[in-house]
């Protein structure tokens, strides 16, 4: 049940056509998602956020046990604090960067779980930020979630995202003398492919 499937382009058709359309999945999202029935638990969480942040944040999807918002860079620290302190999602699971060269953005997606509140433990809360591709900068979330330190370091070296205020933005997995562009960007290609 992928509620993001808002573009019913018959996937089996020619790749050349499918690609450009698929590259901009954001545009139609809220229109399609809103009428879809949202389970009560997720609805409660969403209402908490819309009550606090209003239209500064955008709901990307709400499927059972999975919610995702998109947040603006300037709001992300407030948003994360609210998520951690008031709502109770306290366990960082993953920080992923996704490169979209056609739209000229890099998305950073945080996935946060919950260990302490029994009603939320089965859910994973995600929030994403869209950063300009030529200057991807965002504040680090270490003050809120201490465990994201190494995840953010990895995102820094793999996609070149600068986390402002991070104590150690250094190479982690790549060789120390890596002299190419960040490898998980789409314009870096594996040799011979």
């Amino acid at each position, binding site marked *: *049940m*992928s*509620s*993001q*499937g*808002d*573009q*019913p*382009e018959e*996937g*089996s058709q020619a*790749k050349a056509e*499918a*690609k450009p*359309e*698929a*590259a901009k*999945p954001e545009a139609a999202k809220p229109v399609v998602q809103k009428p879809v029935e949202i389970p009560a638990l997720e609805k409660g969480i969403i209402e908490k956020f819309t009550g606090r942040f209003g239209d500064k944040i955008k709901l990307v999807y709400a499927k059972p*046990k*999975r919610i995702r918002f998109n947040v603006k860079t300037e709001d992300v620290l407030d948003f994360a604090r609210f998520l951690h302190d008031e709502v109770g999602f*306290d*366990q*960082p*699971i*993953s920080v*992923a960067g*996704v*490169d979209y060269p056609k739209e000229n953005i890099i998305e950073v*997606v945080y*996935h946060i*779980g919950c*260990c*302490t509140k029994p009603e939320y*433990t*089965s859910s*994973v809360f*995600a929030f994403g930020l869209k950063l300009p591709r030529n200057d991807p900068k965002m504040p680090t979330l270490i003050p809120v*979630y*201490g*465990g*994201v*330190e*190494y*995840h953010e370091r*990895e995102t820094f070296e*793999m996609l070149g995202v600068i986390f402002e205020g991070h104590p150690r933005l250094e*190479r*982690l*997995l*790549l*060789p120390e003398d890596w002299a190419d562009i960040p*490898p*998980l960007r789409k314009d*870096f290609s*594996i040799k011979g*492919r």
Partner: protein
Amino acid sequence: MGLPPSMQVEESEEGRILTISVGPQHPGSGHFRLVVKVDGDIIVDADPDPGYVHRGEEKMCEYRNYIQNIPHLERPMIADSCGILYPFCLGVEEIANIPVPERAKYIRVIMAELNRCIFELYWLGIYGIFLGHSTMFMWPMGDRELLIDLAEAATGARVTHAYFVPGGVRNDLPENFKERAFRQLDYFKHRLDQYKDIFYNNPLFLDRTKGVGVLSAQDAINLGVTGPVLRASGVKHDIRKIEPYDVYDQLDFEVYSMNTGDSYARAYVPLLEMYESINIIKQALEKMPSGSVRTKLGPNPRGPAGESFKRVEAGRGELAYYLVSDGTAKPYRVKMSVPSFRQIPAMSYLLKGSKLADMPAIYWSLNYWPVEADR
């Protein structure tokens, strides 16, 4: 200093703090370097330095279609190859909307639990030799062979099974699998009792691990650790229970946790989990229906543009895949959130202030696998 240059001993100006590089060869760290600073024999700073076995799994995924990605995705953790492949298959099934036959769900649970035992025995054997207990190295390695034989009978391969595929499992279990599994699991249970006697009640083991590297529940959550490490700190957080996938909600099993949060608890929780795995496998073998084990797929399964985030409880903890699809047959982005990578912050946190001699006991109790962390 009288030490070989490979030990890279540096002396600070005050002459008190020594910097020692542990690894990346295998002196108890394995393809992974830890830069520790010691004052006498107290560690004042520990800096983990992973990346020696990074092979770009996530980038490789973007060049292959969903089915081609199966064999290489289990390479980071060959001791638990079903565990690391499981969430990928669940994710592809969500994206491409592939149904899974009921029998395949049971077989997956059986193989995932069997792999958990295979993995934890391997881990336990190395923990034994880390603490200077040779018998505890020999016994689990030997008993592991029996379980590997069982897995081989089902999948055809000893360790890298490539057994889980989107839509089910690759092939059905052999005919006499149930009887064979029951016989070997009964023997395995008997061996676990013996492990308790020779290792877990051994004064050597108790002295080396009790009260060593204590991680409080609050710190464990904040640092983002997962799996047995988290449960040893008193947080009952097991994906099999809180967000059951496949048929875990139809099986009756316990989640164990301990409150001490020390290395002993982190070693004891996996033992209890192996007992529980035996229980799960037996239940699943009894309840398993007959029928097909795989949904027939075309060569290039694909789904609409979208994303999925699926997680399972692997041997080392919560293992999650973030898949982004753009509607083509190849994934647009695959992000693996692996438990070993999530234990790294706890490592430097726990090593600070402990004795250098306790380093192996703490390091290995965290269930850290360098190849999996580097991906």
